[in-house]
């Protein structure tokens, strides 16, 4: 099995593994490097203890975000991606080190165990700090641009022209956008008024009892449609309000759980009508401050969306509050959202194409509104979706806790519109499914009698979620599923007895604690007792009183919950006790000092486990035996004088005791107690070995100063380390030329032995590939590696030879060069060998020093090769001293800058720096000299002839072995051609992008207009049609009041239709969609047509309309439809705002050679001077004009049409006398119209 932990730790990504309590379990090396921590520092510690928010920065929210995300992962068991985070982490692993800003893009991924529970969370991070920070020095960039412009006059002019074009395109786009927003806004407001007028009488009508069912249904249909329009208009208003920045969240202290429930439950009838289940899972939460109307709109839009795309299964609404946030989830089991749609999903007016939905209605605003409202409230919306499986929308809003909810939050009218819309998606008369309870208690009823099941269902359903199992086998099947909260069990079942079933329940691990109530028709106490004895919690006799049953179910469910909670508590207490017992045992067993009590003959009277271990024998072998017999003679000789002295002089004697047989050093303190001697032993082997090692390390460092090649290094390492560690033999392996195997290069023998020579001889013949034997393993791990006992390691190639030579243990370490492991040092011992951690670290230090030495050797060689490259490079390479004196100037530099090498050497680098850049360059070079890294950047340099040349420049510091900067290299590439090309391309690209965006925005809005038209007309069809039908008494006779009210509805509906048509015309003109199709037309004929068409209306209002024809056959080149529309609007206005027996005159006259003028005058109410200026604006209605006659759009449309046709309109008016409108148009159509 490979060492997965090690593999993980070496993985180059930034990963951190957390357990459920957010304790850090493992981390990759990359992570440690990024956070500047060590593995020992973090493993086992809580993430949030180690990385607190930077206390100096009140805005740091990285930790809060992280915690929220991790909690979401625990909750959802799904990966959770976090937005770009700014983390403040300590730059170096010291408690007082400063915090450093890092930008991380994190992803939290759960690791589930077999039960599907989150066991670990992988916190994976992309470090994008460098990306975020990487910006070219701005001032320099700007200056570059200026210089470039000067240099390339022609190019500059071209660019300038394109820039202006670009700006114009953007401005046009922006103003178009603003105009449309303003327009939507005022249009929506205007639409609301007639809708309200329509809804009022409808409600009055519906309130009456005297309707037959048919008529009532029709009225309800009308009302439902009107409510839907109302909703549509409101959405538009919200959207427009956000657009103009007028929506500010109005936070109130509210009980959000209650509001959520209320809104969700409002949707229940519609959802259940669709055959779906609504799950409302709310976690009661403390009072928080949130704008309840925003919350309501978000929830309504999400629910409406879920219902639209869900065909079976359920819709779930979840709510919970955590740590200054509230989380709303709306989950559905609908068609899901394909990945390709995701990027646009929250875009306004975007509608998912070709989907199976309940309706094709929809404005494409709902989800955009959700996103904008959420963001307005400082929150985020996330989507999780799988095609064919469903979607989850998650809305997280920041919400401060508050003290008390305000007494009542009155829900708005909004839900009504949404509900009536949702209900209209279903065919009528479809039976609704039995309403199921949303209660959180699930009761499983096992009952064979169908009537009884039905009865129990009626009793329980309003309070609990009920499942039925009609017989034993089905009940057993059900036990395989997740446990219910309570089981209601009939004892008399066919096939299997209720009591047997009960025993099954009690044997099932996850059902064991579920309360079971036995239902019995038998009154004999024995049965009931048997039931209780076999594990039932209660019994109820048939017939039962429903209230009694409900009360008992409730009591048992509560009891069970309490029981489960206390069982969990008990379990945790028991575990705590267990762990403290283990701790004590561990402390006792792990005592590090050995202790032994000896008598005058040095016989062992008493000793602890540690001392027995030091002696290397089990305690029972030691008791009663004399110390001289327990130690080797050499070891006893080392100790005896000190022990005798302590015994006889009755004093404390301290000495270092060497045990050659175990290569161990003990520090001994012997206390003479008269008849007895107490000896405490502390193992100081490690310390002793380290002292030797440090001496060796020192010798190596000194020796390396003199060493000339790798052979000298190898000799130094083998002799010093071998002596310090008391090795028998040492070997130095080097990578073969082809880098595929290690070969023995040098050896050093410390113990002369024939067998050892054989061992060396054998080693010399080997070629060791990566992973094999000790050197090969070291090659792979790149770390200090050892084999405690060679004879026990079957993977060790020279096992037999080593055993023959008396070699027992071995250790090895690699020397790492730039490109990987270059050589391996191997040492063998005549004893078992396990290094202390400190020794491993010291060896690693020696290895690193040796590596540096070899790299330096390599660098020397590379430097000689490099000089050759510099000379032949095409790029301009210039080296200077840190202060800027030029020391090297290659042929590339001669070509680029125009100075010969001899001219440049010894001069200051300012020679080629333009005056205005000198300060910047000096600062940059100073930073580079200080060790800062500089990315290549674009700039300009001055040539010998005084011209400037654009270049890509990269500036690097040249450092010596101590890291001191000795020179600065500047490498430049000529950019003249490339710069010109890139600049033009970039501008073209920007232009194209701006045009594309502008086209896209226009297309979206046009689509939206077309769509709006359809959407608004569809419900009007029902409203106008049905009211006409009713007014015409096609359904039945009406009384006068009914007729009057219905006429009101009809009038309002028609008004609305006129309004919509006008709005559409207006929008088409605005959107540039109104097309003009001119032809030659006779003005007189057109006037006569229009006058005739309004005559019936005029006569009804007792107005006479008089047309004065033009002289002769006057023909003009214009769009006949638009021309008639202009006339019709003006003449209708004249009639509408006239007084009885008044008149309207239409006349036509030439105006100069190329134009003609139409005049329309009336004898009406006139217009006051202060109202004249704004007369042609949208929704401008005159103060003294009768209400409800005009749409307020007629003149606005007229003016635009006139303008479109190349003409002008003006008005003269006198209050109470009348108005005169003059339309002046060019005879030959708008300027530039090609004539046929």
């Amino acid at each position, binding site marked *: 099995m490979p060492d997965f932990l090690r593999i993980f730790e070496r993985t180059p990504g930034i990963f951190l593994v957390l357990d459920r309590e957010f304790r850090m379990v493992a981390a990759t090396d990359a992570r440690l490097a990024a956070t500047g921590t060590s593995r020992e520092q973090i493993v086992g510690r809580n993430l949030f203890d180690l990385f607190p928010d930077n206390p100096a920065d009140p805005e740091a929210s990285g930790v809060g975000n992280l915690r929220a995300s991790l909690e979401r992962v625990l909750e959802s068991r799904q990966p959770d991606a976090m937005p770009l985070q700014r983390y403040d982490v300590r730059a170096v692993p010291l408690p007082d080190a400063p915090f450093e800003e890092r930008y991380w893009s994190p992803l939290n991924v759960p690791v589930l165990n077999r039960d599907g529970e989150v066991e670990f969370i992988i916190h994976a991070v992309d470090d994008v700090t460098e990306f975020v920070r990487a910006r070219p020095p701005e001032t320099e960039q700007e200056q570059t641009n200026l210089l470039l412009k000067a240099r390339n006059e022609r190019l500059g002019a071209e660019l300038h022209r394109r820039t202006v074009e670009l700006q114009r395109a953007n401005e046009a786009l922006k103003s178009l956008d603003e105009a449309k927003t303003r327009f939507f806004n005022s249009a929506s407001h205007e639409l609301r008024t007639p809708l309200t007028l329509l809804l009022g009488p409808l409600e009055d009508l519906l309130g009456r009892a005297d309707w037959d069912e048919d008529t009532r249904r029709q009225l309800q249909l009308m009302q439902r449609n009107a409510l839907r329009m109302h909703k549509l208009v409101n959405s538009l208003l919200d959207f427009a309000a956000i657009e103009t920045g007028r929506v500010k969240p109005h936070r109130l202290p509210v009980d959000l759980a209650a509001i959520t429930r209320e809104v969700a439950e409002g949707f229940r009838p519609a959802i259940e009508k669709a055959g779906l289940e609504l799950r409302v899972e709310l976690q009661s939460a403390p009072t928080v401050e949130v704008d309840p109307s925003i919350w309501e709109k978000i929830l309504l839009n999400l629910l409406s969306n879920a219902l639209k795309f869900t065909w079976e299964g359920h819709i779930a609404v979840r709510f919970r509050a955590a740590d200054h946030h509230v989380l709303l989830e709306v989950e559905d089991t609908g068609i899901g959202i394909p990945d390709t749609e995701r990027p646009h999903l929250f875009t306004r007016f975007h509608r998912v194409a070709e989907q199976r939905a309940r309706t094709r209605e929809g404005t494409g605003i709902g989800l955009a509104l959700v996103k904008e409202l959420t963001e307005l409230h400082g929150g985020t919306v996330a989507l999780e979706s799988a095609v064919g499986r469903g979607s989850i929308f998650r809305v997280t809003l920041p919400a401060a806790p508050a003290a008390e909810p305000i007494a009542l939050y009155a829900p708005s009218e909004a839900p009504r519109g949404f509900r009536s819309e949702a209900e209209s998606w279903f065919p009528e008369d479809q039976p609704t499914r039995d309403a199921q309870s949303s209660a959180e208690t699930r009761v499983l009823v096992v009952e064979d009698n169908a009537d009884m099941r039905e009865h129990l269902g009626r009793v329980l359903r309003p309070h609990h979620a009920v499942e039925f199992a009609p017989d034993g086998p089905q009940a057993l099947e059900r036990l395989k599923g997740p446990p219910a909260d309570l089981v209601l069990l009939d004892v008399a079942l066919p096939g299997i007895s209720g009591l047997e079933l009960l025993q099954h329940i009690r044997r099932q691990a996850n059902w064991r604690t579920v309360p079971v109530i036995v239902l019995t028709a038998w009154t004999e106490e024995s049965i009931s007792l048997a039931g209780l004895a076999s594990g039932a919690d209660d019994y109820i006799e048939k017939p039962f009183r429903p209230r009694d049953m409900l009360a008992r179910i409730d009591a048992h469910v509560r009891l069970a919950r309490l029981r489960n909670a206390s069982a969990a508590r008990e379990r945790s207490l028991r575990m705590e006790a267990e762990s403290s017992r283990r701790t004590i045992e561990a402390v006792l067993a792990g005592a590090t000092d050995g202790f032994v009590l000896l008598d005058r003959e040095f016989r062992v009277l008493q000793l602890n486990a540690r001392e027995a271990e030091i002696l290397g024998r089990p305690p029972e072998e030691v008791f009663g035996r004399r110390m001289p017999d327990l130690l080797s003679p050499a070891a006893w000789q080392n100790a005896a004088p000190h022990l005798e002295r302590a015994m006889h002089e009755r004093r404390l004697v301290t000495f270092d005791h060497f045990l050659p047989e175990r290569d161990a050093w003990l520090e001994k303190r012997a206390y003479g107690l008269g008849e007895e001697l107490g000896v405490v032993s502390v193992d100081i082997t490690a310390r002793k070995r380290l002292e030797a090692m440090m001496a060796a390390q020192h010798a190596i460092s000194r020796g390396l100063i003199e060493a000339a090649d790798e052979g000298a290094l190898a000799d130094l390492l083998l002799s010093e380390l071998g002596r310090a560690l008391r090795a028998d033999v040492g070997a130095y392996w080097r990578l073969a030329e082809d880098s595929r195997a290690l070969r023995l290069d040098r050896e050093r023998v410390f113990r002369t032995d024939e067998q050892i020579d054989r061992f060396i001889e054998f080693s010399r013949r080997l070629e060791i590939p990566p992973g094999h034997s000790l050197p090969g393993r070291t090659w792979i791990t790149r770390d200090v590696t050892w084999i405690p006992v060679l004879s026990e390691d079957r993977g060790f190639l020279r096992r037999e030879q080593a055993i023959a030579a008396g070699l027992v243990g071995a250790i090895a370490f690699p020397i790492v060069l730039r490109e990987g492991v270059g050589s391996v040092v191997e040492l063998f011992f005549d004893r078992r060998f396990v290094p202390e951690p400190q020794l491993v670290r010291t060896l690693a230090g020696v290895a690193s020093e040796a590596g540096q030495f070899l790299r330096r050797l390599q660098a020397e060689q590379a430097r000689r090769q490099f000089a050759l490259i510099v000379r032949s490079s095409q790029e301009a390479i210039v080296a200077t001293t840190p202060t800027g004196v030029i020391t090297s100037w290659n042929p590339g530099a001669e070509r680029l800058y125009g100075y010969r090498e001899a001219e440049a050497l010894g001069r200051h680098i300012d020679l080629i720096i333009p005056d205005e850049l000198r300060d910047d360059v000096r600062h940059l070079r100073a930073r580079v000299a200080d060790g800062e890294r500089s990315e290549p950047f674009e700039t300009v340099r001055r040539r010998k002839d005084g011209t400037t040349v654009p270049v890509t420049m990269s500036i690097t510091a040249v450092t010596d072995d101590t890291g001191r900067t000795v020179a600065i290299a500047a490498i430049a590439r000529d950019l003249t051609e490339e710069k010109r090309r890139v600049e033009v391309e970039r501008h073209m690209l920007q232009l194209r992008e701006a045009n594309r965006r502008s086209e896209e925005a226009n297309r979206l809005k046009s689509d939206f207009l077309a769509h709006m038209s359809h959407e608004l007309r569809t419900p009007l069809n029902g409203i106008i049609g049905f009211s006409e*039908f009713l007014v*015409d008494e096609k359904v039945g006779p009406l009384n006068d009041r009914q007729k009057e009210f219905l006429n009101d509805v009809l009038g309002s509906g028609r008004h609305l239709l006129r309004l919509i048509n006008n709005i559409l015309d207006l929008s088409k003109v605005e959107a540039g969609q109104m097309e003009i199709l001119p032809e030659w037309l006779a003005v007189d004929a057109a006037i006569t047509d229009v006058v005739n068409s309004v005559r019936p209306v005029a006569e009804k209002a007792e107005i006479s309309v008089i047309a004065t024809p033009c002289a002769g056959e006057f023909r003009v080149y214009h769009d006949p439809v638009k021309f008639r529309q202009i006339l019709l609007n003006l003449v209708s206005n004249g009639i509408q705002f006239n007084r009885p027996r008044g008149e309207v005159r239409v006349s036509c006259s030439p105006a100069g050679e190329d134009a003609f003028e139409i005049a329309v005058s009336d004898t009406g109410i006139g217009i006051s001077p202060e109202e004249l200026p704004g007369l042609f604006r949208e929704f401008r209605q005159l103060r003294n004009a009768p209400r409800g006659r005009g749409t307020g759009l007629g003149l606005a449309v007229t003016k635009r049409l006139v303008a479109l046709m190349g003409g002008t309109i003006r008005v003269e008016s006198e209050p109470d006398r009348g108005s005169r409108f003059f339309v002046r148009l060019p005879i030959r159509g708008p300027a530039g119209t090609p004539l046929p």
Partner: protein
Amino acid sequence: MKPKILIVDDHPTNLKLAREVLHAAGFEVHVAGSAEETLSLLPLVAPHLVLLDIALPGMDGLQLAETIRARHDGSIVIAAMTAHAMKGDDQRAYDAGCHAYFAKPIDTRNLPARLRELVDARFPHLATHEDPAR
């Protein structure tokens, strides 16, 4: 014999309105909620006239009109209606083989008579019958 009409509209309210109005005007009314349903009903109902909404889910009204024309060789009168009153809609309807085009909201007072004219023009033998719409 009453003229038989098949109304196609996916919007339940609008379908219902047209049904009520035309039923009251003396038509034998059949309804369908989609193009697919219409095509399966056509041989069973054998209507004189199909009144179809252009904006239908799946196969839209224009495709439906073309299909009907192709299958029944012009023996059925086709009238289109739509709330999508944008430029060129009417022309597209005629191109697809519709004989008439009505913008929504429908005019409940004139629609029955207009439809009756269309049916009478194509099926003269029906015109002799008493016509409650006139």
